[in-house]
């Protein structure tokens, strides 16, 4: 394990949390601030985590995927749209519509990545160009359909956005209930347990993202599929000479990656807010690539890096909550554009390789020629 890297990640997260605790302790007890920060961090890191996993699968198989942003955006749109269609036109129950929305988001990610796989594996197009094509296509396609469907009196829905089936519910993990007997009648104890409980009460995609991190790690490093995937990304010819179908492995992993990106897309419009606006992914696909690199192309490392970005976003959100108690000498923290820069500054900082060199799979981005 790369302790230097994880130590650095922990350090940044601690610094970000400390800032919030320092500013907010006038208003709330530190434990409450820390737990709510943690809960937000985990939630907002979800699309980054899933995006980074998407990148890990593609690039471990040797296909660079800078189209994650576009795949997320398209999946967010079509996942949301399918929810609306099934809810308003087929009149299905809302919970079923939401689940169908998630399914269609994943499917959309898969279809977009199939395009990327065809471009980069079959037609051996430069993979950066291929990814750029996906991103441009995603912006154009979602923007166009959004306008055609919902804007103006001539659009399909005649200028109104029909009601969506809603968002995925928070799943309550009954920690408080378990500890009530332990706490007895101490109200402070119950309050603390409730505060801690908030960290674990997450929505389904956020929870599955964490499970998928460890599952992916197991798949990549402990199974036949993972060994072959990494072989194809490191030295495709060596894999070919022992009878592994390089194209098949690359296609399959790019599509798996696309499905992760699709689930990340579903987070935006089905788990977080039930609406769509053009460009709503707002660069998160690219930040997840940075997280993947900083995590040295490992699922757990990428997750840890995603949490850093999540924490900096949580900082931004909390600074708005504590706006009125920010001391004058810290007043710059009120400026959302300064705090909002944190993830991007961190990205640049991390990518300079100050914290140890990362090493990409050797055949990453190189089409395989027999």
């Amino acid at each position, binding site marked *: 394990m790369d302790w230097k890297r994880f130590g650095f990640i922990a350090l940044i997260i601690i610094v970000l949390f400390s800032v919030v605790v320092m500013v907010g302790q006038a208003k709330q007890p530190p434990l409450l601030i820390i737990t709510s920060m943690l809960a937000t961090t985990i939630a907002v890191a979800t699309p980054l985590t899933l995006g980074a996993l998407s990148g890990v699968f593609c690039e471990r198989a040797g296909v660079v995927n800078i189209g994650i942003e576009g795949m997320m955006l398209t999946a967010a749109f079509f996942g949301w749209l399918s929810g609306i269609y099934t809810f308003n036109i087929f009149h299905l129950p809302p919970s079923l519509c939401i689940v169908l929305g998630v399914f269609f988001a994943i499917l959309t990610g898969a279809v977009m990545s199939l395009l990327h796989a065809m471009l980069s594996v079959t037609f051996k197009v430069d993979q950066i160009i291929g990814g750029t094509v996906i991103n441009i296509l995603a912006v154009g396609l979602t923007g166009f359909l959004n306008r055609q469907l919902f804007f103006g009196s001539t659009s399909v829905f005649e200028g109104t956005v029909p009601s969506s089936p809603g968002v995925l519910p928070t799943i309550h993990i009954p920690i408080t209930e378990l500890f009530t007997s332990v706490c007895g009648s101490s109200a402070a104890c119950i309050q603390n347990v409730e505060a801690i409980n908030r960290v674990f009460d997450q929505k389904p995609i956020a929870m599955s993202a964490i499970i998928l991190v460890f599952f992916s790690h197991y798949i990549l490093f*402990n*199974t*036949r599929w993972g*060994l*072959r995937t*990494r*072989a194809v990304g*490191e*030295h495709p*010819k*060596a*894999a*070919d*000479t*022992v*009878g*592994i179908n390089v194209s098949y492995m690359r296609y399959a992993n790019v599509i798996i990656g696309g499905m992760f990106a699709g689930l990340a897309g579903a987070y935006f419009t089905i788990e977080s807010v039930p609406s769509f606006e053009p460009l709503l992914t707002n660069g998160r696909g690219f930040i997840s690539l940075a997280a993947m690199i900083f995590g040295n192309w490992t699922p757990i490392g990428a997750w840890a890096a995603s949490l850093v970005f999540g924490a900096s976003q949580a900082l931004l959100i909390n600074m708005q909550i504590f706006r009125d108690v920010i001391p004058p000498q810290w007043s710059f923290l009120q400026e959302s554009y300064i705090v909002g820069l944190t993830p991007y500054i961190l990205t640049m900082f991390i990518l300079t390789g100050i914290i140890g060199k990362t*090493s990409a799979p*050797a055949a990453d981005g190189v089409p395989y020629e*027999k």
Partner: protein
Amino acid sequence: MSESQIVLEAKGITKQFPGVLASDNVNFDLRKGEIHALLGENGAGKSTLMNLIYGLHMPDKGEIIVNGKPVEIKSPNDSIAAGIGMVHQHFMLIPVFTVAENVMLGDEETKRSSLDRASVAAKINEISKQYGLDVDPNALVGPLPVGIQQRVEIVKTLYRNAEIVILDEPTAVLTPQEAEDLFRIMRDLTARGVSIIFITHKLKEVLAVADRITVMRAGRVINTVKPSETDSAQLANMMVGRQVILTVDKKDHEASGDVLKVEGLTVRDQRNLETVHNVSFTVRGGEVLGIAGVQGNGQTELSEALTGLRSPNGGKVTIDGNDLTGKPPRVITEAGLAHIPEDRQRHGLVLSYSIADNMALCDYYRTPFSVRGVIQPKALDENARKLISAFDVRTPSPFVNAGKLSGGNQQKVIVGRELSRDNVKLVVANQPTRGLDVGSIEYIHSEIIKMRDRGVAVLLISAELDEIMALSDRIAVMYRGQIVAVVDAKKTTREQLGLWMAGAHVETV
């Protein structure tokens, strides 16, 4: 051996690649427990034939018979199933995987869907013990020496129960000691019933280990002979198709004054380890000073420091009295250096440039190649045509990319560019014939001797003791970054040099 059964037979194999008939009605057979050498120059069709047998390509015509049964080999899976294993010239190993992971790749053992590394390791240890192939299953492959990596490749084939093992140019990357080790392993394998096809272009090795030798040239089988019935000269003639002079024709030549003078040179490598310690020597005009030594004893850093590719950390280098210590390559080149670098593809050529451009790499900025900062294509073209014919580069045109040429022709492009310049006073040739075929080696050797006879000083660095012995007037032996001996080439023996190279103590320097 002649009575043992035939385990592999290729009949009438023909394969056409765009522009080349790579395999022309080739017949080949392999008997159980023999080492059958396949000898030929680069591009003779040896590797093509083996790639066809291994399923990396499909033949246009012909059939492959394994153990008496015709088999259709469409992919490596089919050949692995038929008991054929191949050790490729460029190892098919993944540096970031462990030995066990590399060995099991494609044929993984799993326990409840997890990779079963322990049982694979046990199987590797068993193979190691049985065949004397010592490898650590849990070691990462990347940092292993090439000799060990090659063992991993052999273990890989045995793990898949291969009874026929194809070794493609296995000695090209090995030191003499490692090669000896490989030959021992090969004999052990055949003693246990494994049959080996040994592809090479080195005559000595073939005569030393093969039971039968098949010579190929231009996609055809020329002949199959037994080592007892032939000799190097005859094999070389069959390979090249003409009389080849294996010994270098070298007349005595009077050396003049010192040209290259190296005093107390100390060099560190990129890991900041001192790999050349306080080295001093001189090379006189009209002589060849050979630097012998097992690879990795500081030769690379020494030649880089002399040619300006690396700054020395101490000492002084002069050419004809000019102090050139730590000067950039262009200054040293203009002072009269011709450099044939160790890695021709990385330091000798720009592979994506044409031959014509490559041939002007040292002088492109001067007239006639440049006039007022503008490159003159006509001058480049003329220069290239002149050198292509003078140095016998086999190419359809000067506009072909250097990367498309064979190793021998690439080296001729470099030799042509470097040795044709008019102010050359010193030639530094590092491994000038590594990986080349007999014809090219003969040619490059004669060019080096020509330079010497013109009064140029030549510093020859080579890990091939035969090459050092054949060309040098004086021989310096390098061991652990130091020159441990400098001797007259006529007054020493292979054995003596070998001892010095291995670090034996030297009384008189």
